[in-house]
């Protein structure tokens, strides 16, 4: 997991930058994108090993970003973040190719555990 390249995608800037700082303190390389379009550009410029993606974003929504990532880079595991109380969104995301999903507010230890599982399953 050390030096794992992570791309965090969420339009809540303060959430995503703080989460990136916490992951960096744990020795991971986390970058943040505030919308889907930027995320796709960042993936092309420097491909991450894993993407953490919010479902509900202005502009290009999370599911569309997921679909495009899976079309261009099927090897990148994607973990979805959802703010909805039900599991419906997460399940839909997994049907579209997401590795798994987590609900907000998230637990960083749970996120790290999910990322480990994702990396193991996408060698």
């Amino acid at each position, binding site marked *: 997991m050390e030096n794992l390249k992570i791309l965090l995608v969420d339009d809540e800037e303060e*959430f995503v930058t*703080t989460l990136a700082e*916490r992951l960096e303190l744990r020795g991971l390389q986390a970058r943040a994108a505030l919308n889907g379009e930027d995320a796709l550009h960042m993936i092309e410029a420097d491909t991450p090993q894993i993407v953490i993606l919010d479902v509900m974003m*202005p502009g290009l929504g999370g599911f569309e970003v997921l679909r495009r990532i899976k079309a261009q880079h099927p090897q990148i595991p994607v973990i979805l973040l959802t703010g909805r109380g039900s599991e419906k969104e997460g399940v839909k995301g997994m049907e579209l190719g997401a590795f798994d999903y987590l609900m*907000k*507010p998230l637990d960083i230890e749970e996120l790290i555990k999910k990322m480990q599982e994702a990396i193991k399953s996408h060698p």
Partner: protein
Amino acid sequence: MNKCTNKEVAFFGKITAGITHEMKNVLAIIRESSGLMGDIISISPEAIVKHQEKIQNSMVRIKDQIERGIGLTDRLNKFAHSTDETLSKIDLREAIEQLVTLAQRFARLKHVVLKTMTPDHEGPPVTLVTRHVQLQMALFASLECCFTVLSAGGEINVGIRKLEGKNVVNVVCKGDLPGQSEFVRNISESENWPALQEIAACLEGSAKLDETAHGIVLSFPDEIRR
């Protein structure tokens, strides 16, 4: 459950889901910020000094998010209490400001700026006796109609005025808009337009298109018949 009640429940669900989603983001930021402080403190005493700026920034973020959360819960609480009475005396300006705040998330998801055109806060209040819930539904339906014609970067301005004894709400779209006839067609063919007509009629008012101003004009009487 009748058709109208079903629509009211759906409206309440939509607004409540939007606000609680925002609240989840507030809590997520507070959790990450407090978590970051905890991470730094648990490294070593030297780390606290080294990362002092991160700790200070986290504290500011937590304070800001608590204020944001208070604002959201106040609005949500007022919204929930709008069902307390079937008919009530309403300050139209306040009702619009409330609805515009509640609808911010929906506007943001469309990349649209939503604001009120009521700079004259010192002026006399525009009050009317009406059904508060349905008034909010009418205002929200008019915004949803505008969302269907606006593209990213657009703007919606909501203003009020008294005209010939009626209380008029102007919902005006700005930005990269279609021509007048296309504007009228797009809005009148949107699924929200008949719903808006129905709600406005329930309030003994009207909803008309103003193709010249690229807007919707809502009109409500001072008092509806009981």
